[in-house]
């Protein structure tokens, strides 16, 4: 029985980050799926009372919540030797990775979600403009590199890893276009390289499940995807 468990939902882009990190470290884990039709489980409410949100990593029963906090925990607990590093060693480079991870979540991800949910045409146009501006910054960060972390994927790639699989669906259900290959050629190429990596690909939820779930969340309340 795995000592590492993750409380997840089948479609959450935040949860898949954790799976990717554990796979990169070569760690075995078990998934505990939340069933949203039954409301939040006792285990989730007990493990993350402050936010009541997934993902939560359970390491031998001890709970760690907030996806970026979990990523750093995984990187710091399983490090050295042959173990795959998620963050660089140099403090300046680490600060850069953390800065862009925060930016990507606050502006690119929530910007896209806001644009997706906007019903009013003018509101949507403004939201898309803002999202495009944030993606321009991301494009500059990936220019000239295969992955955000360099030759191999790292922390920032995992944090923006929602883009190749989730963004297209958000564009579709939100009636908008953000990741244009002509406007963002480097980001577009990165996206294609990223999802081709086997351990990345094998964690991606089926597209139709994702479309259903995101459409439902969008219509019910502007919430986290």
């Amino acid at each position, binding site marked *: 029985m795995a000592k590492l468990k993750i409380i997840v939902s089948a479609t959450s882009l935040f949860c898949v980050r954790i799976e990717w990190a554990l796979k990169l470290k070569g760690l075995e884990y078990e998934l505990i799926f939340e069933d949203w039709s039954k409301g939040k489980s006792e285990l989730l409410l007990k493990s993350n009372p402050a936010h009541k949100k997934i993902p939560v990593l359970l390491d031998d029963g001890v709970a760690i919540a907030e996806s970026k906090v979990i990523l750093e925990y995984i990187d710091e*607990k399983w490090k050295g030797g042959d173990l795959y590093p998620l963050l660089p060693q140099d403090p300046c480079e680490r600060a850069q990775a953390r800065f862009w991870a925060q930016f990507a979540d606050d502006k690119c991800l929530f910007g896209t979600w806001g644009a997706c949910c906007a019903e009013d045409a003018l509101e949507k146009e403004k939201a898309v403009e803002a999202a495009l501006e944030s993606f321009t910054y991301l494009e500059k960060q990936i220019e000239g590199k295969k992955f955000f972390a360099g030759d191999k994927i790292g922390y920032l790639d995992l944090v923006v890893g929602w883009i190749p699989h989730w963004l297209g669906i958000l564009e579709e259900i939100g009636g908008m276009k953000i990741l244009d290959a002509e406007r963002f050629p480097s980001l577009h190429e990165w996206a294609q390289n990223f999802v081709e990596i086997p351990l990345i690909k094998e964690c991606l939820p089926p597209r139709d499940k994702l479309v259903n779930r995101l459409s439902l969340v969008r219509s019910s309340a502007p919430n986290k995807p």
Partner: protein
Amino acid sequence: MAEEVILLDFWPSPFAMRVGIALREKGVEFDLREEDLSNKSPLLLKMNPVHKKVPVLVHNGKPVCESLVIVEYIDETWVRRCPLLPSDPYERACARFWADYVETKTYSAARKVWPSTGEAQEVAKKEFIECLKVLEGELGDKAYFGGERFGYVDVSLVPLYSWFYALEASANFSVAEECPKLVAWAKRCMQRESVAKSLPDQYKVYEYMLELKKKIRAQ
């Protein structure tokens, strides 16, 4: 080797205060440069082109932005003195979790309290007090959030203490009445030179808030 450390600051900003506290805890000599946010310096615009906000730490010409990112950078760069994060991975995760709670829930709740009025202010005040109570619960009977030692979570939250009077006066409540242990913790932190030197006087912040309210009303 000469180190050049510049902090681009704005005195009422609790985010900038965090960086001041961290640098002073580590005994780092730094050049404190006060920004006029209505007339941002070329250095600020060059060093933080993405957000154009303070605080920015410029270390030997290289910028670090976002207050909690800067605090971690400081902790990882000046390692010999006063570690702000613990060494155990789980305790580090707890510290980062609670600093994130302070950042995403508590500060954003506080920001809604002072500019609002009437029913909206009552809702904002309730949300803010709830956040403080959660934090007080997490603190428990410990001296600091991490235990016996002043650390990362304390640095992330204590600047808000300088805004308590302004928030209380604008929304008619008392943090000391709602969360006495939290106020006791804040006063304990204020006994540290790093905190006392980095936090402005509460009345000065109150007057600043009044000025800001006037400007908002005029717009």
